[in-house]
Structures are given as structure tokens and as C-alpha cells.
């Protein structure tokens, strides 16, 4: 069947046999799960064997893109990767299944132009390989000469062999099965926090290259031209959006990050002096953008002078570098940039790395552990120490071999539970350290989704909550008169699943909603314009809910239930910040959150979802009502 918007096929590769198959995209899949993340979960479920080792050949990886990618619809740039992740999520050895979100300019687009909306990777290669997706199929190629190369070296080598292609590169950490290893797409976009790199490494896959020459058909191109012009004009006429083109995510430095992330030892003034916009501009070389994005929030930097002069550092956002600098007390932004580059090259998640480095340094300085506990590593608050720890982590040497297995392994080794006793953490949920600390941000749908999300520690699923209006959802719960964080979070996750299934980035779309574009209506219109498939807002949201319930059920099959949806205990304790004491409060009504209130908020989340409140999982009735009977 020929589609508009969709490429129309799924590529299924069995690495063990080396055989691949091209499967036509079924209209039933689209009508139920849209595409992108939603359909990736559906395809994963076909091969899902509960409780297998994530690093075994029985754990598949499904890559997916959405129907808007490459059509010219603004913001349709995202790439998704669904697998069981390598990082342990519970003391009893469970691992979450989730959808990593990333992407950049080439890979997803090239995969689609080669003819594929999804790519299923199963089994295990007996030797190191890279996968070369080309028009109509895939070749498995020898990667021996690439082994040991860092992420950028791998990317450059493959681009010299396949100019203009898209590349997902696995670093040395992924090769060594480090469970906080991620991959990097097209040398810029991170993909797979929680160990996608290790899962690829376990399959002996060093990289994936995509090269395609095909085109994407659009159902109503004149309407697309009209809509795109309106949206792009907005971005070229509004001052804040034009600033975002220059500063990337740093445009929100003052209003958002400086306030919410000031959890270190510096005052806000000092943090601003060290990592604010002036510092950002000192090293910024240029901005780069994903396909069809009118913002381009990613920035490239070059260390202007000093020991590391000239090193080019590609960041997803400089905010992350600032955050790491603050956490590790690196007063010199050039050192934080150097460490960002080292993490990227190794293919290590810089969020988790910086949390672990802070944790160990703090314990050592406070005399709670000794150098011997760290296998002789004298971890101090300086760049050299951090680079040494990163090297050991990447190579799985000494204390690095322990840290490479995640927070539970580190806590057990040190006999010091990081979740409870590490007061400087932003919180750890399901084995994943949170990106944001709700005490600073206040409890809202973004923060609650860090607790209830199957992935834990990752706020993106609930982020859109603050932007939802009566045109998007049946009831609005985000006002000072009507705040219900639990219910809002469930709705926000469903909407986010729609975005992720269409393959649309929430960053610019979130911004667009500030200028009066109703979110869901805009998405439904864009979906119709590109694919010709007419779906109302309610039906689109239902498909998001269906995909989210499937996502949850994959994790329920792994053994997850309400007992895993626990708020980080540190969130319920006061945080002594430089400027005073911070406690967890709700966003709009500013109620102080204690354990009882937190539990009632989580109750409300399950209630809105129509799940079993005590167990925190979907009921058979709910699954039947969503036509998910195959999961029963």
C-alpha cells in the first residue's frame, strides 16, 4: 500500500542469521498506534520476551520515525529507539523498557528515504559489525577497524565511507557494555540514556548508517506550504524566538534554569557569572538544527583559550554543560566543556556521570569512604580526577567497573544507599538519576512523570502539561483554582505519546503554543495535511493513550508495579540551598508536599488512567476498552 507521509515499510534484521526482511506497514498499526514511538512499542511487543537479560540476543531494538519527519512539516525531526535498557531499575534486577528520544539532521530522515519507518534489530552478531541501511534493505558490514574508536572518530570514519549519510555511533563505553552508555546521532544528538549503547554493544553493533535516495509524498502540499509559512514567519518575527535561534536553550537561562538548577554551592549570581549568557557567547561557535526546525537549539562550542584551546565541543544544550560544571564545582567553563567532550566521545551519559562523580567525591571528602573503596582512585574536585574516573568507567577498570553497572551496584559496593543517603542528588527513581529536582522546579506534571514514568528520572513525558488547554484535553487541571498534578500528568503523557508517535519535537511545539496555536488541533491538522488521514483531536489522543498503556504493560510484564513508582526520598526532605531552605511544593497552589499528599497525587494519576490504584497497573477492562486485548 502506498502511503502519504509514511515510508511504508518496516525493516526486520536478525543479526544471528544475518537475514533481513522487509515488511509492509499495516494500516491497522497506523490506525491504532500512529507511528514513531507508539508503533515502535507495538513492534517491540511482537518479540518481547519478559525478564530476559537486556544484554542477551533475545532483547530486540526497534528504531522508529514518525509520519511527519522529512515531509517539511516544521519540528518533525525525532528518532525513537525502543528496547529493554541495560541500566538496572530495581534491587531485584528489573530493567525498564522505554523509548529513547533523540535525533538530529540525517539518520532518521535517511532511514525513511531508504524506505523504512522502523528498523527492528534482533539477535547478535558473532563479530563486530556496522549496519548499513540503503534503499530497500540493509547490509551487515565488518566493523573491526572501527572498534575502540570514540564516537566522533567512528562518525567521521563512516561519513568518509558513506558521504552524506546518517550515523548512529556507539562509543567505547557501549562496546564495553557500560550500562550508562548512550549513542550519538549524526555526531550531535544523544540517544539512549540508560544504556542503549550497551545493548548495541552486546549485539556487537558499533554503528548504524542510513543512506536513502527516495522521497516522501505529501497528501495536501498546498496546505502544508501555507501552514509552514505561518509557523516559520512566527519564528522570524518574534524577538524571543529569534533569540532562541542564536542562544539555543540558553535563551531560557535566566527565567528557567538559573532559578531551578541553582542547587550547588554557588549563589545564583556566581553561577550566572560562571555559566551565564556572557560565558556561553565566549565559546559558542555556531548553532545547528535538526531537520525542518526553525529554532536550532543545539550549539557547537570551541574552547577559546587555555590548556584545551581549540577543542570543538558539540552540545545538545550548553545548559547541560553548565549543569555539570555546577554539580562538579568546575569554576572554569572551559573545563566543563572539555569534560562534556570527553563524555560524548566515550558515549557516556553526562547527567549520570556527573551525579556519580559528585557522589563519590563527596563521600571521599567527607570521610565516609576511603581511597581503597574506590580501588585506589583519589577522586578530588578537579578536572583531572573526573577525567580519570570517566576513563575507568569507560574501560570498566577499578571503581569504574562497579559504577558501570549503575547506582545499585555502586551503593552495594560502598554499603551506602545513594537513593537515601546521597543528599546532593536530584533524586534517583528506578535506578535512574533525575534530570530535575522537583524541590527547585516545584511539583508539576513534568516532575511527577519522573516518578511514575516507566523509565523514571526522565521528565520529558510530562513536560507538555503546563501548556495544555481546554482545546487539548477534556479537563484542565493546571490552574491555581483547579490543580490536580496526578490527573494532569496522565493527560500530558498521552499528549506526549501523540507527539512522539508523530515524531514531533516538543521543544519548538511547546514554544508555538505560547503564541496561541492549540497544540492537539495543530497536530491533528498537520497529520491530516501530510498523510491525508483525518483524525479528530479526541481520537488522536485516544491513540496516544492506547500506545502509552501498551508501553506500561511491557513494563508490567517485567514485574513493575506501584512499589516502583516511589518518589525519591530526598525530595521529601528540606534542601539547604545557598540562599535558604527549599521544600517540595506544588506548582500552582504552593502546597507543601509530604508523603501523604504525594501518595494521594500518585493515586490521582492512576485514577485518571483508569488503572488499579493499589497495584498501579492497567486493569483488564481498561486494556479491553483500548482494544489492547492481545496483552491479556
Amino acid at each position, binding site marked *: 500500500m502506498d502511503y502519504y507521509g509514511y515510508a511504508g515499510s518496516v525493516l526486520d534484521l536478525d543479526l544471528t542469521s544475518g537475514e533481513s526482511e522487509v515488511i509492509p506497514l499495516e494500516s491497522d498499526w497506523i490506525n491504532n498506534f500512529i507511528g514513531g514511538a507508539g508503533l515502535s512499542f507495538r513492534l517491540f511487543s511482537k518479540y518481547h520476551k519478559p525478564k530476559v537479560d537486556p544484554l542477551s540476543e533475545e532483547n530486540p531494538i526497534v528504531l522508529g520515525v514518525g509520519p511527519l519527519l*522529512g515531509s517539511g512539516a516544521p519540528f518533525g525531526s525525532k528518532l525513537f529507539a525502543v528496547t529493554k535498557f541495560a541500566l538496572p531499575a530495581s534491587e531485584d534486577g528489573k530493567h525498564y523498557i522505554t523509548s529513547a528520544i533523540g535525533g538530529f*539532521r540525517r539518520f532518521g530522515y535517511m532511514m525513511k528515504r531508504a524506505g523504512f519507518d522502523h528498523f527492528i534489530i534482533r539477535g547478535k552478531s558473532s563479530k563486530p559489525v556496522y549496519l548499513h541501511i540503503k534503499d530497500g534493505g540493509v547490509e551487515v558490514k565488518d566493523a573491526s577497524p572501527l572498534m575502540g574508536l570514540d564516537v566522533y572518530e567512528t562518525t567521521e570514519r563512516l561519513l568518509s565511507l558513506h558521504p552524506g549519510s546518517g550515523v548512529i555511533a556507539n562509543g567505547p563505553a557501549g562496546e564495553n557494555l557500560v550500562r550508562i552508555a548512550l549513542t550519538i546521532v549524526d555526531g550531535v544528538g544523544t540517544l539512549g540514556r540508560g544504556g542503549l549503547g550497551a545493548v548495541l554493544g552486546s549485539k556487537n553493533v558499533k554503528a548504524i548508517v542510513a543512506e536513502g535516495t527516495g522521497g516522501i*509524498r505529501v497528501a495536501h502540499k498546498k496546505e502544508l*506550504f501555507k501552514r509552514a*509559512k505561518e509557523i516559520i514567519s512566527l519564528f522570524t518575527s518574534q524577538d524571543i524566538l529569534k533569540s532562541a535561534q542564536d542562544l539555543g536553550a540558553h535563551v531560557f537561562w535566566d527565567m528557567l534554569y538559573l532559578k531551578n538548577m541553582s542547587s550547588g554551592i554557588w549563589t545564583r549570581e556566581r553561577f550566572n557569572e560562571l555559566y551565564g549568557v556572557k560565558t556561553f557567547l565566549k565559546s559558542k561557535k555556531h548553532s545547528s*538544527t*535538526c531537520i*525542518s*526546525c526553525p529554532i*536550532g537549539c543545539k550549539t557547537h562550542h570551541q574552547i577559546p583559550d587555555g590548556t584545551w584551546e581549540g577543542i570543538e565541543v558539540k552540545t545538545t544544550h550548553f545548559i547541560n554543560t553548565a549543569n555539570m560544571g555546577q554539580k562538579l564545582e568546575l569554576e572554569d567553563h572551559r573545563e566543563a566543556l572539555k569534560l562534556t567532550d570527553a563524555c560524548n566521545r566515550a558515549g557516556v551519559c553526562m547527567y549520570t556521570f556527573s551525579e556519580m562523580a559528585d557522589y563519590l567525591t563527596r563521600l571521599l571528602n567527607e570521610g565516609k569512604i576511603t581511597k581503597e573503596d574506590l580501588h585506589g582512585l583519589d577522586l578530588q574536585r578537579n578536572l583531572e580526577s573526573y577525567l580519570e574516573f570517566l576513563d575507568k568507567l569507560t574501560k570498566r577498570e577499578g571503581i569504574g567497573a562497579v559504577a558501570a553497572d549503575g547506582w545499585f551496584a555502586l551503593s552495594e559496593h560502598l554499603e551506602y544507599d545513594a537513593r537515601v543517603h546521597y543528599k546532593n542528588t536530584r533524586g534517583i527513581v528506578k535506578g535512574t538519576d533525575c534530570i530535575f529536582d522537583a524541590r527547585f522546579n516545584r511539583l508539576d506534571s513534568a516532575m511527577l512523570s519522573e516518578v511514575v514514568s516507566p523509565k523514571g528520572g526522565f521528565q520529558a513525558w510530562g513536560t507538555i502539561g503546563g501548556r495544555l488547554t481546554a482545546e487539548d484535553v477534556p479537563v484542565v487541571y493546571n490552574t491555581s483554582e483547579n490543580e490536580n498534578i496526578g490527573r494532569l500528568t496522565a493527560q500530558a503523557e498521552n499528549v506526549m505519546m501523540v507527539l512522539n508517535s508523530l515524531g514531533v519535537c516538543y521543544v519548538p511545539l511547546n514554544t508555538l503554543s505560547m503564541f496561541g496555536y492549540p497544540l492537539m488541533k495543530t497536530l491533528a491538522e498537520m497529520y491530516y495535511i501530510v498523510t491525508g488521514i483525518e483524525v479528530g483531536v479526541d481520537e488522536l489522543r485516544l491513540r496516544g493513550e492506547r500506545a502509552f498503556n501498551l508501553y506500561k504493560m511491557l513494563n508490567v510484564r517485567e514485574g513493575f508495579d506501584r512499589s516502583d513508582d516511589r518518589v525519591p526520598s530526598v525530595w521529601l526532605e528540606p534542601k539547604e540551598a545557598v540562599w535558604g531552605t527549599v521544600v517540595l511544593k506544588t506548582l500552582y497552589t504552593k502546597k507543601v508536599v509530604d508523603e501523604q499528599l504525594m501518595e494521594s497525587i500518585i493515586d490521582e494519576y492512576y485514577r485518571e488512567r483508569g488503572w488499579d490504584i493499589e497495584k498501579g497497573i492497567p486493569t483488564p477492562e481498561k486494556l479491553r476498552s483500548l482494544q489492547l486485548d492481545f496483552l491479556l
Partner: protein
Amino acid sequence: MEKTNIVIDPSKCRMCLQCQIFCSLLHEDEANPSKARLVIEENTITFLDTCREKCSFCADYCAYGALTPAKASTGG
């Protein structure tokens, strides 16, 4: 070919490919940069001879000022 109806500044290009995608969609009925009538490379923007002299459609969709219509596009 030389374009007189578009002001070109390759230094501002972010390579979002929107111009190529819409050029090919307009003229070839599919979103396919390989069939676009302009080529985007690092620091270079080249218009092919197949580009229609009066068309500046691509420039209407550049969000970064790399392509700016010198006057309103006729769509070629």
C-alpha cells in the same frame, strides 16, 4: 545558476534542509532533497540550472536568513 531574486548568505545556513524539501515538493511532487533545484553543503548554497529564473519559493521558508527573497515569489 546565478539567482538575482534571492539574497544568499551561506554563513547563516543551519542545514535544516527546509528549502530543499519544499523545492522538491513544489516542483517534483515529493519531498526529496536529491531532486531539489538547489544544493546545500557546508558554507555553500548552489542553484542548479534547472531552477526557474523567477522562482524564489525556497527562500520563503528559510528561517535563518540564508535565503531571503529579493521580492515576492511567483512560485516559478
